[in-house]
């Protein structure tokens, strides 16, 4: 009998505890306007353009919300990348967080109901008007977590795109002009090859090879192809252009010596340091290198858009997301709004970043201004084509493996296209059920 009483008491205690915990967490009353704490996480370094901009945004937020404490924590990219689901599903997560854009990340969390729908705020606060359609693609996700349509689950406030970095000194020394067409580009590369210089830095073990392939493919592509490939609007034929052209031209560039045959095992860092060290005259890579080259490179250098392309690999930067469990949603929306203000956007631009809604005339450094003007050009012509590894989870490694084969000559373009087509089809089927 005594044992029975103890059991009843334990059950009652457990029930009380559960009720109390439920009252503390989960339940969203919808009214958090009196929240006094904003928990904010992001993974930008303090001196990066975004880090500088967001530090200033926090100061502005504090001055406009007296009595509200901002609890900021800087996290590691991998930490959030691998644990975001668990973090924001708990009551210990932040109220607002920087998170990776794309189907496998923000899309996945949104499809599980873990992110707040920001559509009403985007309309009310005019965020939609500040972001071009291709920038909005990564902000909106369907019920299945596929980007490009549906509700707003994130807000980007910086952008990124793939461009060509070139070493001005090497160009001048070898009598090479800055290319404006693909014919110019190949002529420039031929000149470097004839002088024993490998013109394009490459890193087969990481993203650069896939991005060069995609840039080449995009030269023969239109928006419909991007929608088909990235948003699954229609099936993609890997054995036809533009992908066929991309793979064949990549192989051709390797055979002509534009890309080193022994670069399959190199990492992006190797490529970047080779460019910084003046060992290669050009690299095709993202605007994320810009700040580093500006700080570390001694030779004169500049950028130009991949010649002839209207579509460029690129997208919005990562997103501000508001977890469904956030206890300070109104404050989180206010913070996002501040990061999109001209003051913060200009600050990002003046620190070597690519703001999404900046006035280029406010950027003081001519080189910074050019970077942003180029981005604005691409963005305004709806030219952001995202990245080749985005369509399905795990596709990054598939592309790396495929293009390593093309660099070291162990696979033909046809074989590479076969090897990347199958995982793509399987991944799309996994997501869409088709």
């Amino acid at each position, binding site marked *: 009998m005594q044992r029975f009483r103890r059991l009843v008491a334990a059950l009652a205690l457990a029930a009380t505890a559960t009720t109390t915990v439920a009252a503390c967490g989960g339940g969203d009353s919808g009214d958090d306007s009196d929240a006094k704490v904003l928990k904010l996480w992001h993974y930008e370094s303090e001196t990066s353009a975004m880090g500088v901009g967001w530090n200033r945004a926090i100061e502005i937020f504090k001055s406009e919300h007296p009595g509200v404490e901002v609890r900021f924590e800087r996290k590691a990219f991998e930490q959030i990348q691998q644990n975001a689901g668990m973090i924001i599903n708990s009551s210990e997560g932040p109220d607002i967080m920087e998170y990776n854009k794309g189907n496998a990340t923000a899309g996945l969390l949104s499809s599980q109901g873990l992110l707040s729908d920001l559509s009403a705020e985007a309309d009310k606060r005019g965020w939609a008007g500040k972001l071009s359609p291709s920038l909005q693609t990564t902000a909106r996700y369907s019920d299945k977590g596929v980007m490009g349509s549906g509700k707003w689950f994130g807000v980007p406030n910086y952008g990124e795109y793939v461009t060509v970095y070139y070493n001005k000194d090497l160009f001048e020394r070898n009598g090479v002009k800055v290319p404006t067409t693909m014919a110019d580009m190949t002529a420039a590369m031929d000149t470097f090859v004839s002088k024993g210089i490998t013109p394009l830095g490459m890193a087969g*073990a990481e993203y650069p090879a896939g991005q060069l392939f995609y840039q080449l493919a995009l030269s023969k592509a239109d928006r419909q192809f991007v929608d088909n490939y990235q948003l699954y609007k229609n099936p993609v034929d890997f054995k036809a252009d533009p992908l066929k052209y991309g793979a064949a031209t990549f192989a051709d560039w390797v055979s002509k010596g534009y890309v080193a045959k022994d670069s*399959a095992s190199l990492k992006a860092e190797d490529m970047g340091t080779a460019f910084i060290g003046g060992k290669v005259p050009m690299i095709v890579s993202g605007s994320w290198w810009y700040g580093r080259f500006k700080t570390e490179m001694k030779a004169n250098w500049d950028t130009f858009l991949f010649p002839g392309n209207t579509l460029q690999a690129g997208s919005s930067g990562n997103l501000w997301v508001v977890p469904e469990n956030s206890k300070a949603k109104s404050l989180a929306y206010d913070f996002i709004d501040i990061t999109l203000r001209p003051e913060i956007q200009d600050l990002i631009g003046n620190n070597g970043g690519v703001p999404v809604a900046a006035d280029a005339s406010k950027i003081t450094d001519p080189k910074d201004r050019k970077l942003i003007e180029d981005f604005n050009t691409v963005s305004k012509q709806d030219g952001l084509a995202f990245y080749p590894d985005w369509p399905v989870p*795990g596709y990054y490694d598939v592309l790396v493996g495929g293009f390593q084969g093309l660099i070291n000559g162990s696979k033909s373009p046809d074989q590479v296209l076969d090897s990347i087509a199958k995982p793509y089809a399987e991944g799309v089927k996994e997501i869409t059920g088709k």
Partner: protein
Amino acid sequence: MAVSETLAAAQPAATPPQPSPGRRRRGRNAAYWLYLLPGAVLFILVIGAPLVGTLYLSLTKWSGIGDPRWVGLDNYQQLLHDDVFWASFRNTVWMLVAMVVVPTLLGLLLAAVLFDVIGRRFKPRTAAALRAAFYLPQVLPVVVAGIVWGWILRPDGAFNSLLDAVGLGALRHDWLGDPDTALPAVMAVMIWVQIGYPVVVFMAALQRVDPELYEAAEVDGANWVHRFRAITLPQIRPETFVVALTCTIAALKVFGPIFALTRGGPENATNVPSYFAYYTFFKKLQVGYGSAISTVLTLIIVVVAVVFIWMQARSERRDRGI
């Protein structure tokens, strides 16, 4: 107290009833269980529960968020037809060569030479210093070793520079970037990493061998090879089993060096089951499928361990003439 009283107090007044042998054994067994309890609880928490969890997840489809969907044996059926999975196991066979066969054989030889030749002809300190040198890679964090070897083997790395310096520049190669050379290069690194472990274990084993055996053999005219075959090998057989078993398990679940050196590439040339499971878990977000790979790997490791332990027990029984 008088001495007689003390003695009387020490003596029991009467012989107490002795517990029966059966009761005594039961009591002793109960005490054993008490000692086993902390270990058992830890085992359940750290190994048992995750194992059951992994087994359950391997029967589901799950992206890591939301509710897993029960799919029965679908993941295992898919595994049977997965070329990458089989390629990863083929590579594991080569990792067994690099991490078990070569280090054990080479380690045995090196230990015998260090103990029986270097240790005798030079000061024991020389043998100890060489043993420490062989063991050094085991002390280095494996990811650090992987990164350093990655630098050495890269196209403009130290190895290619060395080839240039000795007039073999024609052999320059992207060792980790070519599917034909990536696996042999990784194997070479693993031999370097692994070799110190058997050397240290075998040298310790040799120290417990009665020196008179060697002296008697020498008096009888046995040369080094004879002594190695007739004394060294049989005497350190138990340690050989231990080294072979632990190295085999290490080879089956090798992950760190692959992650640091090649990430399974190029073209899966160096992929191994544990890296494939990691990739499936965290990159493809297929937790159920990744769990199936992990479960199969665990099963193989358990079977291998049981077979090794059974062989060792049989060998010991034979030695004792049971």
